[in-house]
């Protein structure tokens, strides 16, 4: 069992407030990913949970027990560091068994657990080596093995894959997902890589400058971002944004007059007054290039990125705002060409002046 509750957690370093009041519930067997831009406090939040930093205020509960003041050693958590943090003077075997040795576990039990973890991670042939003699991926495995051996309540990962090369990263990502399945473990994972967040998480927590922007499943966040920040942060290429003003509104529709010289009617209900400033967001896959004259919006083609399977066309609207359009891989407009676009209105997002999503379906951030 592992149920973690974080209540109104705050942390300041030398007077600078870094974590500004976070509430969070993490349930047993969840794979929770903290994601956010660099410096938003992801690592700090993780270290607060681990007990490596003292909280400024608020509290942390694990399985109904307040652990805010409990020493890291007594929290029954295991952490995998970005730098791996292996003990350089010990063999892989000793690295794996260190925690169990300290707790005074019987020799045979330690041996069995170490060998079990080594088998899971395919470390058997490396057990007698020193960390110096391992490759980056192997070190990473040892670091994960060190956590597995202890059978902690929660696994904490701080950007564990960021020091690996691209191919290895994809492979380790799959292995981590498998590990989560096999161990039925609760995991908290910090990353600024949104692909990792989308693929690994059962629950994503988007952080921005010390606050939670939104919590939800990866697809929930992708399809129903609660605000401009989340909308712009998740998804590659990023969502395009067009500013405008609200026109006529009705019970389940509203009209938006875009600065890019176009009017669009969206199936959204809003309580905002006509004329209010709004921002329309649309993802590259929800924009279509249509024959001239049939489109909603006329734009000028900028550069295109051809990936083979798809082409991402970057286009400039008449108001100067940039949009990205995803089209088939065999299509590429010429630079400077005029294109007509139509929008998938069911997938348009609308945000009010403060950046909050206008969408009846969304429950706002926790």
């Amino acid at each position, binding site marked *: 069992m592992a149920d973690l509750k974080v209540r109104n957690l705050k942390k300041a370093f030398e007077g600078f407030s870094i974590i500004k009041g976070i509430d969070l519930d993490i349930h047993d067997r969840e794979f929770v990913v903290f994601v956010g831009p660099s410096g938003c406090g992801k690592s700090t939040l993780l270290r607060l949970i681990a007990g490596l930093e003292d909280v400024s205020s608020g509290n942390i509960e694990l399985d109904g027990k307040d652990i805010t003041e409990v*020493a890291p050693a007594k929290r029954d958590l295991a952490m995998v560091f970005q730098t791996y943090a292996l003990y*350089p003077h010990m063999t892989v075997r000793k690295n794996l068994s260190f925690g169990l040795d300290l707790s005074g576990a019987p020799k045979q039990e330690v041996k069995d657990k170490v060998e079990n973890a080594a088998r899971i991670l395919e470390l058997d042939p490396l057990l007698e080596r020193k960390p*110096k003699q391992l490759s980056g991926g192997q070190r990473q495995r040892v670091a994960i093995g060190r956590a597995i051996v202890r059978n902690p309540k929660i696994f904490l990962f701080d950007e564990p894959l960021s020091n690996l090369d691209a191919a290895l990263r994809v492979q380790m990502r799959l292995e981590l997902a498998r590990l989560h399945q096999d161990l039925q473990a609760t995991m908290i994972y910090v990353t600024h890589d949104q692909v990792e967040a989308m693929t690994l998480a059962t629950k994503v927590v988007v952080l921005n400058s010390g606050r939670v922007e939104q919590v939800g499943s990866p697809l929930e966040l992708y399809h129903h971002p609660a605000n401009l920040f989340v909308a712009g942060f998740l998804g590659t290429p990023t969502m395009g944004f067009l500013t405008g003003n609200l026109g006529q509104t009705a019970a389940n529709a509203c009209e938006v007059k875009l600065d890019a010289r176009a009017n669009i009617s969206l199936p959204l209900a809003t309580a905002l007054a006509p004329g209010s400033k709004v921002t329309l967001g649309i993802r590259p896959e929800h924009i279509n290039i249509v024959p001239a004259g049939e489109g909603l919006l006329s734009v000028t083609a900028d550069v295109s990125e051809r990936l083979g399977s798809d082409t991402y066309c970057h286009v400039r609207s008449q108001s100067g705002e940039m949009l990205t359009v995803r089209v088939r891989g065999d299509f590429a407009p010429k630079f400077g060409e005029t294109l007509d676009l139509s929008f998938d209105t069911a997938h348009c997002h609308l945000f009010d002046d403060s950046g909050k999503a206008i969408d009846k379906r969304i429950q706002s951030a926790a």
Partner: protein
Amino acid sequence: MLTLKQKRSLQSLLVGCAAWLIAGLIFFPIFWMVLTSFKTELAAFATPPQFIFTPTLENYLHINDRSDYFSYAWNSVLISFAATALCMLVAVPAAYSMAFFETKRTKGTLLWMLSTKMLPPVGVLMPIYLICKSLGMLDSRLALIVIYTLINLPIVIWMVYTYFKDIPVDILEAARLDGATTLQEISRVLLPIARGGLASTMLLSLILCWNEAFWSLNLTSSAAAPLTALVASYSSPEGLFWAKLSAVSTLACAPILILGWISQKQLVRGLSFGAVK
């Protein structure tokens, strides 16, 4: 024109020559001292200096007759090792807290500690002499041990601090999460990783203690007198006898030179073995 390769080898040749020259300059006085210790007093004075002579052990025999070398040497060993041990006992926790739990005042504290070394020792001779006297600690090994510990502490803390600074704090945090107490974290993770650096720090502290003369001359007379006091006793009362002085100096340096020589291999290995990255 020289090719790049020739330039490189010429360069390394020049650097090699310079290195040998400097090493020779540094080593020459020691060499000359050892040489002189095997001459007769007459030969020791000879101009031009003699390189070829019949070696004699008479100086060493004389020293053996006149003074009890081993009692002095024992004092030196005891005082140096005890002071070094005591010093490390204080320096390790101090450096640990400063390297891994840095606060706003850490840098200032470090500088302040070093600044105590700027005071000339003679400036505090009077008070320390009087304190020792009133505590009945004149000519006691304990007094020298305490004083050596204190005067070497700033340098030793600095050295240990810089070695600790090179160790990524993640490794200690990993140990903490693995369930290690602070003591286990230090003894089972930090010290083994830093052992190369700690060994060279201890060697330096031993050498400093071994060669210290100011306090040993002023605070001891016989019972607690270390080798430096023995050497000094050969320079004053009977005028200068170069050969005998050289012999006693050779005897005084020998143990620490041998220790350095022996530990050299381990030191180098320790230094590279602890490498983390």
